[in-house]
């Protein structure tokens, strides 16, 4: 009897430790990723000089006298993301309001299925569709020599951020207490006025979360953008071939070496810092929302 108890106790202890180890593994992964990105990203920045690296406007990594300025990539990522947000968020928000407040149950369910499916489509499929459908169309409509440019990338990114924007802001809209709506309706506002003047302001922090999430997705997207943005290291122009932070890392990685390779890791570090900043905003927003509840 005593013996059985002892083995059971041991087993309990071991399992407890095992589960704790599983939990701690997630922390370890985050630390691992951070350390590897920082260690491999620092040397090139040191070598090139942080100012020349971040603010240099010319990226010529394979030239005889190579220049490593990543301002074009940073600006392209910022412009591209802003453009995608500018197009994607209004459409997503209108759709979220429709789903939460207006749609009959059956239609709402169908649209929600559509949104879920959009979220599941692999990014290379978006890229392929962009390459074949959007790029030639953009070229023809705007009379350009090549349709693979920032504008096409923005269109593809706008579609890709829709699912996260819609589902998060729909949840936020649904979380607004019904009393707000009833009070507004009782005061004589129409249903639509109520939605846009009472409910949306009340769901503000949730909507900001949705935008931050969409921003994160747009900044981090690589493959689809690689297929439609043209991938030339120019300063961003709406109808010029451009390269994003993500695609800058991906496009030269397979053949790079030496300082060029190190510089690619530094770009990844910059991208990582961008993402961490967005995550931080997201965390603060979620915390504030939890406190409000």
């Amino acid at each position, binding site marked *: 009897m005593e013996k059985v108890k002892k083995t059971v106790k041991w087993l309990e202890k071991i399992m407890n430790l095992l589960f704790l180890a*599983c939990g701690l593994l997630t*922390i370890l992964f985050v630390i691992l990723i951070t350390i590897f990105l920082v260690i491999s990203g620092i040397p090139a920045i040191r070598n090139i000089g942080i100012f020349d690296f971040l603010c240099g406007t010319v990226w010529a990594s394979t030239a005889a006298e190579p220049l490593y300025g990543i301002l074009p990539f940073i600006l392209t990522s910022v412009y591209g993301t802003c453009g995608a947000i500018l197009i994607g968020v209004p459409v997503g928000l209108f759709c979220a309001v429709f789903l939460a407040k*207006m749609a009959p149950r059956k239609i709402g369910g169908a649209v929600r299925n559509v949104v879920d499916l959009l979220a599941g489509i692999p990014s290379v499929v978006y890229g392929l569709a962009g390459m074949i459908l959007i790029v030639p169309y953009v070229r023809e409509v705007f009379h350009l020599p090549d349709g693979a440019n920032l504008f096409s990338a923005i269109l593809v990114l706008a579609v890709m951020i829709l699912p996260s924007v819609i589902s998060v802001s729909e949840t936020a809209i649904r979380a607004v207490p019904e009393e707000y709506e009833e009070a507004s309706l009782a005061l004589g506002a129409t249903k639509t006025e109520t939605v846009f003047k009472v409910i949306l302001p009340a769901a503000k922090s949730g909507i900001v979360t949705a935008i931050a999430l969409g921003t994160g997705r747009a900044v981090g*997207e690589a493959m689809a953008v690689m297929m439609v943005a043209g991938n030339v290291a120019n300063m961003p122009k709406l109808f010029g071939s451009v390269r994003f932070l993500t695609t800058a890392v991906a496009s030269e990685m397979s053949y790079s070496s030496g300082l060029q390779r190190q510089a690619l890791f530094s770009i990844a570090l910059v*991208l990582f810092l961008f993402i961490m900043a967005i995550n931080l905003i997201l965390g603060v927003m979620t915390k504030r929302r939890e406190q409000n509840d």
Partner: protein
Amino acid sequence: MTENISKTRKIRDLILNLLMVLSAGMICCLLLGLIGYILYRGIPYVSWMLVSTKPSLLRGTVGILPNILNTLYMIVITLVIVLPIGVGAAIYLNEYAKNKKIVRIIELATETLAGIPSILYGLVGMLVFVQFFSLGTSLMAGALTLVIMTLPTIIRTTQESLKTVPRAYREGALGLGAGKWYMIRTVVLPCVIDGIVTGCILAVGRVVGESAALLFTAGMANELLSVPEALQPGNAGSTLTVALYMYAKERGQFDIAFAIAAILLILTFLINMSAKAAARKLRK
């Protein structure tokens, strides 16, 4: 009632309503158009030859059997590794953890992992698994990278379904003298099996759709690999998504790219449906 409203308000209402319906309609048309176009372009090229052979330069034929197999290997290896870790972490968070601070930190770490873009995973996977652990560009390195990527999904879904298990179950088992691990194994885990299945389906969806993280970890090779070969370090292999990218971007063979895209779309559809079915079962 409605007559009392001024004309400008009425018009504004109408416009806003119209915009709402238009947005939702546009999104639906977009998806239908996208699916329709890809199936239209891709399905004619999906043949038995394509899915059952490997590419041959000699005969000038293209087959995607290696890519299909690689995708399967990738799914299986990833799930086998990520499931115990993810479920274990969720169990720790929900059942064992007493220290609130540790829970908060682990949850923060999980959220952080979920927010990191896949291209960065690919880079870190290359640095850590391919170079540091010298696995070489291989399916194993790719799968290990995907383990870190899918971990948050598994943890979150398991944790959510653990929360739905009534406390009375646990108290009952503990009251009867069961040890904590015994209680979890025999009472709690059987209750959350649906949640774990949902997590697995979502993870499969991520593995199937992933490309950026695999480009530099699992490589771009199109060789046919047997099961033991797939587990060995150094054997590179591209999944369907990576193959699509290569055919479309590097070689300009759009017919094959569209055929792969059609297959991927059908897979996505199936995965979505089964995730929905599992979630519905879970709610019951």
